[in-house]
């Protein structure tokens, strides 16, 4: 088997003396050679049609501005042969393209030339072998050096050069040539007559291009021939990491959706909390009004005392004025002072009632819990007297201010006191005592306890006393303690009940101490 033209010429020349009866297979020979020297009976061939003008056409299609082509070709016999063939084939380009041949140059000169080619140049690489100085070089070395130094794109006619700095084009496929040759060789080895094994010549394959070289030389893919295949394309970030990117995007979308859902839920929760707070405030107001309504008789009595005193004093004053003596004037002055005191007392009663009746949004403020509870005790003073109940208030000195809504906390105390009063309605007179105790639990909390002398809580009451609509009173709504607990919990405290050891029950709640004492408000 011969490979390429020179070996074919040699075999034909010396066949009779070396291997006269052995089948001969020519491969990698140009079809033109076989036209000049047709195959004999004991010969077969896998020929090629080297279409070098097509190679130049392809390069000009990719780089239409090209005006100069530097032809890298060896200086040996094969190089000289192909230079003659190419000069004849490429004549049709001579009016617009200048061809420069490397066959008279040393390798160093070739490398210098390719590094300083004028603009609109291209390089075409043929097989090399030896340079003008007779130096033999491997193709891979030449291609690597050319690729490193060249200032113009490089083309080649054989697939073996692809991947070594060649831009690409329509190339003769060497692996396909090897397979076709092996097909024919194996048939001959298996006994077929060479004359019966005839295969068509092989043509250059579909154009292929090296994506890296296209990028390097800035050649747009739109300039490539139709159907061109692009090899060595670096995968994009998306192509390389699309699963990771998709997973990250999915996670981000999921996270965003989750955050959005949480924000929506939080907004809904806020609206619900706001609505709940408003409703609780209204309910607290209603129950406050209701509690004060229960106190109407005692409040009337509380107001009647100063009014009666004012009336009596006024009548006495009129009598003294009727006498008109100098001592009487002094008496009248004292009487008028008593009237003023009685008026202030009545005014204080009305202020206390009005402050608890008002339904207005109040923010959390710091205030003196002892004073606030004392006001409630004073408000219930007449009721306690009428029920024959003794109320005592016990508080540590220099009690710190608490943080919260003064009226709401007063409402809790009012409710606990009224419950205590109701609980003792059947108790002996000696047991009708209520003790209000204000004590410090720790540096953060105060505790207020209301201890009565009633019968205490039954097992059922102890369990359900804070449930809404649970009451032991015939005329009760059962909301007082439920609202009281919700008020205390809204303040960050706790409300609970327990039976005393001897008799009666104690209702206690805790309330946070204000962070800064200077904001104390005593309303």
């Amino acid at each position, binding site marked *: 088997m011969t490979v390429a033209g020179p070996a074919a010429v040699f075999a034909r020349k010396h066949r009779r003396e070396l291997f006269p009866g052995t089948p001969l297979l020519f491969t990698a020979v140009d079809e033109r050679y076989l036209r000049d020297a047709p195959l004999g009976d004991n010969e077969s061939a896998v020929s090629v049609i080297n279409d070098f003008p097509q190679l130049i056409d392809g390069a000009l299609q990719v780089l239409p501005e090209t005006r100069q082509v530097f032809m890298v070709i060896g200086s040996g016999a094969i190089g000289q042969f192909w230079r003659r063939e190419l000069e004849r084939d490429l004549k049709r380009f001579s009016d617009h393209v200048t061809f420069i041949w490397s066959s008279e140059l040393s390798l160093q000169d070739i490398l210098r030339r390719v590094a300083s080619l004028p603009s609109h140049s291209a390089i075409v690489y043929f097989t090399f072998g030896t340079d003008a100085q007779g130096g033999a070089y*491997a*193709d891979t070395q030449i291609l690597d050096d050319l690729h490193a130094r060249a200032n113009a794109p490089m083309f080649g006619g054989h697939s073996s050069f692809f991947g070594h700095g060649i831009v690409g084009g329509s190339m003769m496929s060497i692996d396909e040539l090897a397979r076709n*040759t092996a097909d024919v*060789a194996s048939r001959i080895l298996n006994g077929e007559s060479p004359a019966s094994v005839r295969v068509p010549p092989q043509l250059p394959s579909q154009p292929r291009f090296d994506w890296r070289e296209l990028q390097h030389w800035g050649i747009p893919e739109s300039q490539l021939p139709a159907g061109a295949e692009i090899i060595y394309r670096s995968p994009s970030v998306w192509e390389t990491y699309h699963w990771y990117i998709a997973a990250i995007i999915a996670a981000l979308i999921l996270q965003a959706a989750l955050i959005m859902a949480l924000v929506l839920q939080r907004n809904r929760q806020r609206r619900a909390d706001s609505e709940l707070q408003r409703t609780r405030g209204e309910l607290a107001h209603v129950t406050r009004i209701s509690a004060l309504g229960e106190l109407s008789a005692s409040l009337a009595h509380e107001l009647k005392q100063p009014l009666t005193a004012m009336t009596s004093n006024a009548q006495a004053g009129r009598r003294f004025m009727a006498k008109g003596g100098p001592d009487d004037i002094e008496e009248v002055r004292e009487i008028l002072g008593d009237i003023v005191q009685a008026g202030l007392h009545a005014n204080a009663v009305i202020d206390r009632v009005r402050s608890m009746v008002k339904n207005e949004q109040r923010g959390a403020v710091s205030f003196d819990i002892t004073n606030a509870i004392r006001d409630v005790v004073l408000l219930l003073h007449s009721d306690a007297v009428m029920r024959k109940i003794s109320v005592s208030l016990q508080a540590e000195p220099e009690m710190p201010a608490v943080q919260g809504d003064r009226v709401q906390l007063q409402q809790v105390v009012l409710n606990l006191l009224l419950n205590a009063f109701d609980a003792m309605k059947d108790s002996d007179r000696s047991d009708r005592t209520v003790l209000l105790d204000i004590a410090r639990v720790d540096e953060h909390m105060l505790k207020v306890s209301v201890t009565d002398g009633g019968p205490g809580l039954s097992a059922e009451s102890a369990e359900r006393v804070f449930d809404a609509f649970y009451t032991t009173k015939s005329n009760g709504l059962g909301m007082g303690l439920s609202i009281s607990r919700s008020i205390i919990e809204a303040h960050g405290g706790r409300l609970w009940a327990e039976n005393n050891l001897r008799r009666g029950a104690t209702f206690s709640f805790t309330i946070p101490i204000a962070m800064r004492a200077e904001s104390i408000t005593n309303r």
Partner: protein
Amino acid sequence: MMSSRLAGALLGGLLAIGAASSDAQPSVKQVLVLQSLDRGNLILDQFTGDFRIALDQRAEEPVNVVQVVVGR
């Protein structure tokens, strides 16, 4: 007329085939590859490598391939 160097190479190839024929089984087939270029030519190196592999895949029996460079 062949040069003495080329004749030597060719004789070596033929002797190699002859030795393989006598040493190995009688059924071993022989291919003498006369190539125009020496190793280092990228086209030839790829061609001969691919050819040997493809021939091994197609041949029913072992094939002895000997490469000789001629016609440089």
